[in-house]
């Protein structure tokens, strides 16, 4: 299979969907000639023109709102939100306008739009450019939320998002744009609500999304060397959440660590732990354990920033404790 970068995979997904459906267009700051500061969208304006690759003013609420109206009236916007941190500026449009439109109209209106944005710290970008804010949108009914972990998923989930008739927010880890991975030549999409068991195991389930999937894979390899068999599951979409796959895994292993780069408290790890605690209660051999980012604004100083996010070593150590019963 061909190996391409995450950027390239995203670029392919958008180009393919724009070729497939004339109603799809791109909207955001510096998406056209500049191809975004991350250069992810380079080349699209050359193929599709400025009518379909639209540079906006620095008006996040405004252009997200504009996308909502465009989506309600037949177009299918993909909004590029340069940093996930800017989502706060747009939440009235995303949560009060887009998310509720279908319901409030009794199913008569729909809002087929995608907000493509990012997450992830350790880029030394400080508190306002490093947040992982997927929990906020996951809490709002009417939105779907995807967190790809590889170029393969970045492409497949984004294509599904673009074809979805509902507002979808896709969070990409901003340190992954140069990550390479296998992507099929032929067309494919990845259905929402299908978690992926990356590595089967029996002693403990490591559940994560986005870049924390790699952290769990590394931890699983470390654990194997220690004789512990970890099952690694990639959540892929937090809404819809593939509860069945997660519950089945934990029923088998009896233990789980849920890892996420969002703040731990009131974050997605809480929901997953709570659901597993309800549904797999009688199968648990150890407390369900969460490892989210620290509950602090992201500090600039590298020596501090690196302390705030979960690491493979940390996951491994915690897993050893849980499996050995030391956590008790």
């Amino acid at each position, binding site marked *: 299979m061909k190996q391409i970068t995450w950027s390239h995979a995203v670029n392919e997904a958008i180009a393919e969907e724009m070729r497939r459906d004339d*109603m799809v*267009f791109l909207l955001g700051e510096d998406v056209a000639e500049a191809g975004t500061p991350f250069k992810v969208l380079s080349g699209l304006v050359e193929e599709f023109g400025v*009518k379909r690759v639209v540079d*906006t*003013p620095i*008006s996040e*609420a*405004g*252009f*997200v*709102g*504009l*996308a*909502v*109206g*465009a*989506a*309600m*009236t*037949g*177009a299918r*916007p993909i909004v590029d939100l340069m940093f996930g941190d800017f989502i706060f500026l747009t939440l*009235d*449009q995303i949560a*009060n*306008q887009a998310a509720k*439109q*279908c*319901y*409030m*109209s*009794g*199913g*008569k*209106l*729909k*809002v*087929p739009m995608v907000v493509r944005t990012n997450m992830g710290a350790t880029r030394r970008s400080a508190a306002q450019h490093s947040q992982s804010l997927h929990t906020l949108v996951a809490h709002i*009914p*009417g939105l*779907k939320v995807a967190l790809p972990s590889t170029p393969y998923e970045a492409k497949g989930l984004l294509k599904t998002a673009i*074809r*979805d*008739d*509902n507002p979808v927010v896709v969070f990409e880890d901003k340190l992954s744009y140069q990550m390479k991975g296998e992507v099929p030549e032929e067309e494919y999409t990845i259905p929402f609500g299908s978690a992926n068991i990356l590595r089967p195991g029996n002693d403990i389930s490591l559940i994560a999304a986005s870049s924390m999937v790699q952290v769990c894979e590394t931890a699983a390899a470390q654990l194997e060397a220690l004789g512990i068999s970890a099952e690694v599951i990639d959540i892929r979409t937090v809404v819809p959440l593939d509860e069945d796959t997660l519950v089945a895994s934990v029923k088998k292993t009896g233990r789980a660590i849920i890892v996420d780069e969002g703040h731990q408290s009131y974050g997605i790890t809480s929901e997953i732990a709570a659901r597993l605690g309800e549904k797999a209660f009688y199968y648990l051999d150890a407390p369900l354990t969460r490892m989210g980012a620290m509950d602090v604004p992201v500090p600039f100083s590298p020596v501090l920033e690196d302390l705030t996010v979960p690491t493979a070593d940390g996951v491994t150590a915690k897993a050893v404790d849980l499996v050995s019963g030391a956590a008790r």
Partner: protein
Amino acid sequence: MATFNQSDLPRLLRMYRRMVKIRVFEDNANELYLSAKMPGLTHMYSGQEAVAVGLCESLKSSDHITSTHRGHGHCIAKGAQLKPMFCELLGKAEGYCRGKGGSMHIADQDNGNLGANAIVGGSAGIATGAAFSAKFRGSDQVTVCFFGDGALGQGLLYEVMNMAALWSLPVIYACENNHYGEYTHVSEMAAGDLKARAEAFGIEAHTVDGQDVMAVCQLGESLVARTRKGGGPFFILLDTYRYHGHHVGDVNRAYYRSKDEEKHWKNERDPIIKLAEHMISNKWTTQTQLDAVASEIKAEAKAAVDYAISAPYPSGDEVGMHVYAAMQN
């Protein structure tokens, strides 16, 4: 007074009928509230009829509007039926939104009404997006964005007016200046010259007497036509007044506006009376004919109210439906 001729009578009568329909609708809605038959509360459009009716007169059914918390008037002006409207206000299954939206979210997709909005200024983005989409799809649809003077406080409006101007979008921003946002006068909420706020973005702006439906219609006609040909966006500031309180429960208003002021607008500047007087003084119609129109509409409204009151609520199953659109592609 704008220059309409006797040949325009069918149009004037249509506008008259629509204004009366709105007024009668609101009287019934108010009554439903006062008699505790309506859940929640609602905001009356009475007094502002000429704004919605005058502007919508030049719109096709496929053109779009966005509306506000004070949205019954826009809904009727754009062609909605009374039965599904009352059903919606009462939370019944046959309502435009199957009872899920209620007064503050009433929408009528078939007639291009993208919906009322309970966030002040919240539909400015939607309207601008509908206009973007029309241009993008190569359609000649025009969008009218209705909002109150209070919405001038929302930054979103300036963000989207800027984009509408940059990209020459076919949208008309219609600011209904009824002089109050809730219990506060516009002069305490908005500094400077209101029209200049659009002009600063290079948007041609107009002021019109919002109680004179002929003037509104004439200005609207020319701006809608120019917008349809790609000449937009435009901004219209319409001077108007709401007769009732901010919402149906706002009864003691003396602390923020005087009875005299209310009387002045009701007696001297009522849009329905003004149009009636114009048509009658020109001998294009008679009071008797107009009374007949009113009676007919009152009967229609009463029938719609009765229908809505006995119409069924949605079944409990529906609570979980429509959170997500069923996929069609």
